[in-house]
């Protein structure tokens, strides 16, 4: 499959994520949209990693070319897990105080 398909798919996923963050009002759904953005980046990285590997076939570094892209994906997963951990606890803390996860509640600061 040509690389363009992967690029288009991950840009579409990314845009769905961005639109979700900007339009949704539920903190959990905003959070899911952010995860979607991260996974779009993951998909793109893996696709490019394979692409660079394919283009290096026959050269001296064919075995390792493009491997750093896949390594990056692992780091993103780990960091995303850490972020989920902190983010969900912030949302729970919020829920305990307001009994709602609606971000429309978040306009007390604007005055």
């Amino acid at each position, binding site marked *: 499959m040509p690389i363009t398909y992967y690029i288009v798919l991950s840009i579409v996923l990314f845009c769905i994520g961005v639109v979700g963050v900007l339009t949704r009002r539920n903190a959990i759904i905003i959070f899911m949209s*952010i995860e979607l953005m*991260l996974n779009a*980046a993951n998909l793109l*990285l893996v696709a490019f990693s394979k*692409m660079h590997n394919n283009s290096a076939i026959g050269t001296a570094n064919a075995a390792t070319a493009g491997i750093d892209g896949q390594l990056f994906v692992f780091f993103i997963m780990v*960091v995303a897990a850490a972020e989920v951990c902190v983010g969900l606890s912030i949302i729970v803390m919020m829920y305990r105080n*307001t009994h709602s996860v609606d*971000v429309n509640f*978040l306009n007390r*600061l604007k005055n």
Partner: protein
Amino acid sequence: MNTIILSAIFGVVMMFTGIFIHNRSVYKTVSAVALLVLLVFNIAESHGSAIFNIDTANFLHFDPFGLLFNSICIFSTLIYVMLSGRDLEKAGNNTAEVHALIFFVLCGIGIVTSYTNLLMLFIGIEILSIPLYILTGSDKKNLKGNEAALKYFLMGSFSTGILLMGIAMLYGSGGTFMVERVAKEGMLSYLSALGMVLIFIALSFKVSAAPFHFWTPDVYDGAPAVITSFMATVVKVAGFAAFIRLIEGRLGSMGSQSDRLIGIVIILTLAFGNLTAVFQQSVKRMLAYSSIAQAGFMLFALFAVNDAAKEGLLLYAAAYSLATIGIFSVLAKMDDMTLEGFNGFSKSQPLIAALLAIFLLSLAGIPLTGGFFAKYYMLASVVKTGKYLGLVIVGVLFAAVSAYYYFKVIQAMYFKEGNIVLAPVTNRFKYLLVFVAFLIVLLGVFPNSLLSFLYF
């Protein structure tokens, strides 16, 4: 390397201190001692004797600029912990953990001031940000703090998503994550141009440059004043260190297009920050907007990217951090954070009022204070490049605007009658504040006393 490893270790040490020692006033002392050790080892490393010599496979490169930046950040944090340690105890129940998180933030700063690889940029920024989300919400019962934490978290991880997408695109076009090697490509492909713009947007979020600044006033206003003090100073200037390393490495491939982009961002940031700060009634919120305005000045360094810009950024980081930490340390002790709260300050606390005046003058950039030379170096660096001299005029105009709202606080302190409500201050606090003011004046008279560390 010393900073990165030692600050992570000290963070863990602070957490264990929290388990074994239950006397809250000890945490501050332990933390200050650890910071001092960290500072000594960082300075030792910049003189060429690192205790950890680890092969980082060129992922990290420790140059004098990054190490001096670390020193400034650690020193500011030390001053911050010593000035505001008492107020940190009030920000939440888990004081030891707050100190631990501050060390983890410093670990992130150590990475973002020395990365040469986009992977390290990403990890550094995350290590820097994730503890901050927790710190913002450290006062769990305070609804405003909760709100600020959630907002900061959502905006922060949103910008992380954008950053990652940008990095993925740069990787697609260049096949490597190294900052410098990517730069040597001649023509820009659409993929790398898009990637660069996305990374630029993400980092603008982090340093709160307009038009991506909208979260800043709410978050800085909602978080406890002590935490805002740390976020608005040490962390923000570290964001600029990350930014300038990236722009420096990538400049060859961006060319004149990036100049225009950064120029527009500078003007927008200066305009939004200064013009909205004028209308604020709360001093805390005014300082939040002023931090956006000061970010506008620091952006000049990204526009110029030459030696003068780097010197200016270091000077700016020191002068701005020290002055803002000083102001916030007093603000955290006040009940009424509006302008009226400052009425008659000079009558009841003449010494602190005078020191606050020095800090505010430094932020406004009046000669004989560090802020003056910081702004001067920034503008001089743009003059040296010889491009877009109109930017310098815009900068000077907005510096004049900024003087208005800083002087409003001074006016309230000296020329208005009123009673202030200030928590009791110790003599040690006063001496320390005098020391900070002395440093700011020293930077304003001999800026080379700091910059000489860059070339020895």
